[in-house]
């Protein structure tokens, strides 16, 4: 069967690498709709023809689940990610720890918008836990997506920014200044689930299960994703 997979854009490269092999192995052809997790869940709520959703955050999938849009029992966490603090690659890093963000040398810090962008929500949660968030308000700028955060740091418009580790790896112009340890940071996980209105629930369940398997996990790891925690 043909499967329409709604997937967070950040998974684009990995999924494109996986698709041909999966099709050959199972005969199921994969079709991806790659957008931000917010747009994906919005689309599914308006009746978009998705078989499978892979989101970059749990919250939005919770909303779908509560709305009864998912096949019960199909939800499963398949990946994890960590937060990193990036600075421009060609600058002497003024920061070595998260607490340095408070120093006057750091004039502006870019985040994903906590209200709409998951990476922003996680950043706020983590820095809040460290007691840094409220003190940074004056130098904070919220951006609409991860790419904007990277671009702001690359161009030097922000002295630092928090993104996923996988995002940091795609840019040559930023370097990782601080890596948030998996255990310490917020739990950043990617759930997969089968959409109830989908046309091929059996094939969809098969694909969702396969994503947790070792073959898929190896490819994800190549792009910097972590396996889900215990």
């Amino acid at each position, binding site marked *: 069967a043909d499967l329409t997979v709604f997937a967070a854009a950040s998974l684009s490269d990995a999924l*494109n690498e996986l698709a041909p092999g999966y099709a050959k192995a199972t005969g199921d052809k994969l*079709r991806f709709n*790659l957008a931000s997790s917010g*747009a994906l869940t*919005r*689309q599914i709520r*308006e009746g978009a023809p998705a078989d499978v959703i892979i989101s970059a955050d749990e919250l939005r999938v919770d909303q779908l689940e509560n709305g009864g849009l998912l096949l019960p029992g199909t939800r499963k966490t398949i990946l994890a990610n960590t937060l990193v603090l990036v600075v421009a690659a060609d600058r002497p890093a003024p920061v070595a720890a998260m607490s340095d963000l408070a120093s006057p040398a750091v004039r502006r810090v870019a985040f994903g918008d906590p209200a709409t962008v998951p990476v922003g929500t996680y950043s706020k949660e983590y820095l809040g836990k460290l007691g840094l968030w409220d003190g940074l308000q004056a130098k904070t700028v919220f951006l609409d997506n991860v*790419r904007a955060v990277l671009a702001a740091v690359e161009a030097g418009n922000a002295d630092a920014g928090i993104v996923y580790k996988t995002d940091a790896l*795609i840019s040559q112009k930023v370097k990782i200044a601080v890596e948030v340890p998996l255990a310490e940071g917020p739990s950043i996980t990617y759930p997969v689930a089968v959409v109830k209105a989908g046309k091929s629930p059996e094939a969809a369940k098969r694909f969702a299960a396969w994503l947790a398997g070792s073959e898929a996990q190896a490819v994800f790891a190549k792009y910097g994703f972590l396996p889900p925690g215990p």
Partner: protein
Amino acid sequence: MDVLQITLFTLAIALAGTLLILPPGIALAWLLARPAWPGKAAVETLVALPLVIPPVATGLILLKLVGRRGPLGSFFENMLGIEIVFTWKAVLIATAVMSFPLFVRTARVAFEEVDPRFNQVARTLGAGPWDAFFTVTLPLAARGLLAGAVLAFARALGEFGATIMIAGVIPGETITLALGIYHHVQLGRDAEASVLLAISIALAFGALWLSERLVRKNA
């Protein structure tokens, strides 16, 4: 993503979208060029709507209309068996809706500038209202209509926000140059983005150049 396929698809959609809005756009522009009639301001605002609200919001409204559960979408799907969202048809709808106000407003100016005396002359020569419109008013407004069509075409090439809401980014099916650029940019693939960007610019340049030629031949 196949660059050639994306380019042809975008070109086809932009062309089709532009052609699609010409007949209603011309009719509406002509109406708006006429002296005040009741409801004119309301119609104008409605037409201008896709301009004044963020494309994502337009996309959402469209999704509610033509989505499977929307009034139009369910009609098409249940009665005619036609699926719209997340197909090329959705891309077409999104680009047409977003281009429409640009065409209408430019065409309206063009109609307003046509001296009504020529229409009167045509009428005295035996041309009915429609005949006079098509043989006199329309050709005299042609420059402006063409300019409006080029504007609409350019906007169709670049339309992104509404498209992504109702058509998604489905490789091989709904990816336009604009969506492709967005996608590459998102993933930090600036080189690939530049290629698509260059193609967009080339297409726009071609359209503008062609319209200049047409205008000059008409003058």
